[in-house]
């Protein structure tokens, strides 16, 4: 993989849910690449398709969801062509996932030790009980759980929320995956525990050299941990760039408004937060033009007719908005006249 520094390459991925009311385009043609050792944040409001996109990478899409187009390549292999058995061996081994609510994500009737060693047993038939046990204890130590031998014998209800999320992280990293997908891992935790878990993830990311896709709606968390950010709105990526670019030089109107709507501690003047007017679009009947068009204060005629292409607005910074093509549009309008 010397010449190819890309771990994950997603191209024009389309995921739809076929409901009785019609096709819901949850993910509508997104593309990005993720390098080794890179942390990519995916932000967006609820229903913007960020989790669905992640589930399709790991093959956990539930009926009636289906990948209907595009490709997902992991180390050059086409994940969408995998058989179910190949996919099963891939999950938990090469790529693993942690979820939002650690309270319900661990099976209540099995011990932590049982659930940790299970991952090893699923992916290595030859591993001995002793080896699996030792590895699990080592992982628990690594995620900062004290007295790991005792924890191995405990049930999830005997651990606190933060400790359960640590155990989830230990479980996700036990096979040393190349990619970790974190689906809002800190959302259900209180703020001090959030900070601890983020610190732990940052630390482990460096130690274990794992790439992370970090899904969240919390921009503060993104700034804390990510190298690059993709901003999603209604199933499409609207802007993508490095953390600094997105936070200090946002180009897309949606990103700008999103940033304006979060409180800041470092500003001297106390200003009212600006909400984004309107409601998210109905994905059953997506608009012909830009998905954000109906809520955008800078909306132009073309925005309601055609989906905007990406414009490169900085180094590795792209934004899908017609405003970046304003000159071109005006020239064309003159020509037409």
């Amino acid at each position, binding site marked *: 993989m010397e010449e190819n520094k890309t771990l994950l390459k997603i191209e024009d991925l389309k995921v739809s849910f076929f409901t009785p009311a019609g096709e819901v385009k949850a993910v509508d043609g997104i593309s990005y690449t993720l390098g080794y050792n890179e942390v990519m944040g995916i932000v967006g409001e609820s229903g913007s398709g960020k989790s669905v996109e992640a589930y399709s990478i*790991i093959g*956990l899409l539930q009926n009636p969801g289906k990948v209907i187009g595009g490709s997902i390549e992991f180390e050059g292999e086409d994940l969408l062509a995998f058989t179910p058995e190949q996919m*099963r*061996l*891939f*999950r*938990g*081994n090469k790529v*693993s*996932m942690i*979820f939002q*609510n650690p309270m*319900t*994500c*661990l*099976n*209540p*009737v*099995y011990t932590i030790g049982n659930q940790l060693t*299970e*991952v090893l047993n*699923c*992916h290595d038939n030859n591993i001995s009980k002793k080896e699996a046990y030792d590895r699990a204890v080592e992982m628990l130590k690594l995620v900062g759980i004290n007295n790991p031998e005792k924890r191995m014998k405990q*049930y999830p*209800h005997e651990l606190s929320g933060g400790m359960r999320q640590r155990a*989830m992280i230990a*479980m*996700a990293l036990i096979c040393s995956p190349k990619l970790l997908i974190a689906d809002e891992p800190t959302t259900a935790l209180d703020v001090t525990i959030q900070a601890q878990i983020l610190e732990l993830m940052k630390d482990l990311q460096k130690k274990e050299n794992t790439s992370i896709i970090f899904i969240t709606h919390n921009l503060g968390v993104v700034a804390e941990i990510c190298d690059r950010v993709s901003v999603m709105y209604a199933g499409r990526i609207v802007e993508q760039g490095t953390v600094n670019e997105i936070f200090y030089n946002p180009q897309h109107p949606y990103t700008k408004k999103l940033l304006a709507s979060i409180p800041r501690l470092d500003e001297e003047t106390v200003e009212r937060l600006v909400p984004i007017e309107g409601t998210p679009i109905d994905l059953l009947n997506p608009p012909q033009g830009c998905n954000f068009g109906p809520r955008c204060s800078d909306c132009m005629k073309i925005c309601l007719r055609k989906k905007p292409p990406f414009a490169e607005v900085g180094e590795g910074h792209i934004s899908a908005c017609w405003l970046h093509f304003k000159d071109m549009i005006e020239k064309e309008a003159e020509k037409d006249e």
Partner: protein
Amino acid sequence: MASYILKRVVGSILILLLIMVVTFFLMNAVPGSPFLTEKSTPEQIALANAKYGLDKPKYVQLWNYIKNYCKGDLGVSLKMQEGTPVKDIIFHQGKFELSIKLGIYALLLAIIVGIPLGCLAAYFRGSWLDGLLRVVTTIGVAIPGFVLAALLLIVFSVKLNIFPTRSENLPNFKSYVLPVISLASYYTCYIAKLMRTSMLDAINQDYIRTARAKGVKTGSIILKHALRNSLIPVVTYLGPVTAGIITGSFVIESTFSIPGLGKYFVQSVTSRDYPVIMATTVVLSALVIVMMLVVDIVYKIVDPRITLTAKED
């Protein structure tokens, strides 16, 4: 655990005492006498009453029952097998054994068939198999055991002549088939329905998604992760099932002419054989109490979150 069981045993004795008191007053509230026949004269009845102590005040009679039960003496039958100790009738004439065997087989059938059927229906939800099972289990829950027993007898015994019509002392495997199926059908179908619902609920839980994300095999997800969680409501239901199967067996015993405890229990009530009524009630109650204790312990094994005693944590 040991202290918990001890506590439960002490509690059970109190419950049995209460059951004895209630049974005593209930059976005495029913008019009639074990010695009342068309030919008997008032003098004869008074004589018999005096012989068995039925002429004494009620509280003395009750006290005698309790005193004798503490000594392990269940009294003698007044009518059905006059003079024979009730203990011998219940335990040494095979009645208890017959009923228990029938009940346990029915319970096992309900569990062994009901749980997998429920799992299958949940796993293949929405398929033709799920639909078929739904129809079958609904019919099974709707048809009373004695109607099914009659149907089975007509088809398999009378028309096809595969199984015997009278099972008597249940001498062989064949004779068990129809009574056990009749007794178990309702509970099997009910457990299957319960299992389907709770399995569907379990399958949609977050920890199942975690298991899939870990790369656990589908079979293992169902059998290890979902099954144990979905068993919890089923285990809860097993308490009443046990009681129902044991006390409800008398109809089936009558239909198949099995001289079991259930049938004997009903006969004792109609013939006012007081000591037999009392003994069968207490024995059956004790059995149900023991099964409830077993269910509670199984409950703890299936779900580690449950604490049996307030102190334990």
